[in-house]
């Protein structure tokens, strides 16, 4: 995903009904772009073959 602009972030927030100030939009844009950057390397992982796993492993059966 390319870099999001403040205008795009402001429009996304407005579209889902979230009230934001101009200062909020500026910072949220940095935060969102940084998170998407940080998640970028996940695209290189073999995620298509990942199966869901239970959070509690090897839980004994209910009595």
């Amino acid at each position, binding site marked *: 995903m390319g870099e999001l602009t403040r205008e795009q972030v402001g429009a996304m927030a407005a579209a889902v009904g979230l009230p934001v100030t101009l200062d909020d939009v500026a910072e949220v844009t940095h935060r969102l772009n940084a*998170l998407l950057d*940080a998640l970028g390397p996940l695209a290189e992982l073999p995620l298509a073959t990942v199966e869901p*796993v239970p959070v509690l492993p090897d839980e004994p059966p209910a009595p």
Partner: protein
Amino acid sequence: MTLTAADDLAFSSVVELAGLVRARRVSPVELAQVYLARIERLDAKLGAYITVLREAAVAAARQAEATVMHGGTLGPLHGVPYAVKDQFDTAGVATTVGSRILEDNVPTEDATVIARLGAAGGILLGKLNLTEFALGGTRRFPFGQPRNPWNPDHDPGGSSSGSGIAVAAALCAASLGEDTGGSVRSPASWCGVVGLRPTWGRVSRHGSFPLSWSMDTAGPLTRTVEDAALMLQVIAGPDPRDPLTSRRPVPDYSAALNNGVRGLRIGIIRELTFGAETDGEVREAVSAAARRLEGLGAAVEETSLPLVLLAGAIFMALADADGAGVHQHWLRTRAMDYDEGTRRRLLTASLIPAAACQQAARARALLRAQIHGALARHDLLLCPTAHQAAPPIAAGQAPITSRAEVAGRFFTRRSYVTPAALAATPAIALPCGFTRAGLPISLQLIGRPFDEPTVLRAARAYEQATDWARRRPPV
């Protein structure tokens, strides 16, 4: 009682205090008053408490004293004063979760963990400060700025900030925090105390304000590992009111506490201990701790977890998105009642593309497999709890003006504590040294799911071989 004697009593461990009460050498009333006096004297400059229950604590202590004098049944915490993060419901006592939005919230029943600590005989001193809604990044704390007892200009860590401060400064004998992605271990690390994240599902979440359903867990902060074992013993176990608690039997966490580390295989996580992000003094102290464990008989070797440095970003994509779901109503109706840092974090989380969250969920499974694989080869994994010692408070208060700042302030540091949360494993933070500036450094030990006994046993062996736990902050 002289001030020195009172201070010595206040810094005693929970196990010691419970023994003194049981032996009738200290009255629960005297004990409560010692801590209340310290809170009165010190908390204005530390900001650990949101609510202090002076009258209720003394009344409960009088009742506890009467039980002792009449030879009644005494629980494991009988007469011992403790405090809890203001994220846990307390019947008839405000539970703010660190936010003005909930300042008038007075629950009608106790959270399960509060009920269990009370049933064990503990005396609740009050509710402890936290970052707003247990999210990190609060800039202006609505109920006062929490400060690090080792240097009040520095961050005490979060989100269970007050829980770390109160234990380090002996404003209670022990505290309870909540750890979604490091919120017990981070303040334990920066305040120089012990913090235990139990296996997810080991402790009930009922009555704890949620952040992320698949990672939230309550955990104790204490001055000794033995106390952490005792506190866990009290709060652990299935709860019909939390369907996600495990049905596994709760072991005796003190039984093997003194068995040492001889024969244990410990893997040092290379990326977190020797990586470029880790501060030199932290690396040095944690490496020395690993050598100490080796000297005590453990087999210590490096191990690699290539995905671990992605943990912070994976965590934030998942936990923050969960949090955004929790907060949608207030974000739309009371946005300006949030602290600016909290609001912007939740707004960001509300806009994460669904595909990114789904990728993060799958990457979590891969990371978890990597961690569990390492734990099949090793009994424990070892790394720093934090990449650096406590930074100045001012460093976290400025608005974010670039994406590079976001990575430094959020993703990097979370990659040290979130792996255990993402993999649903237990982890403990314990002091392993100090920087040249006098700030605590912390060692983290991560164990297999439900193997808290081994985590506690190794932590205890290290603690006993060093004197870090006996140091007191200059307050």
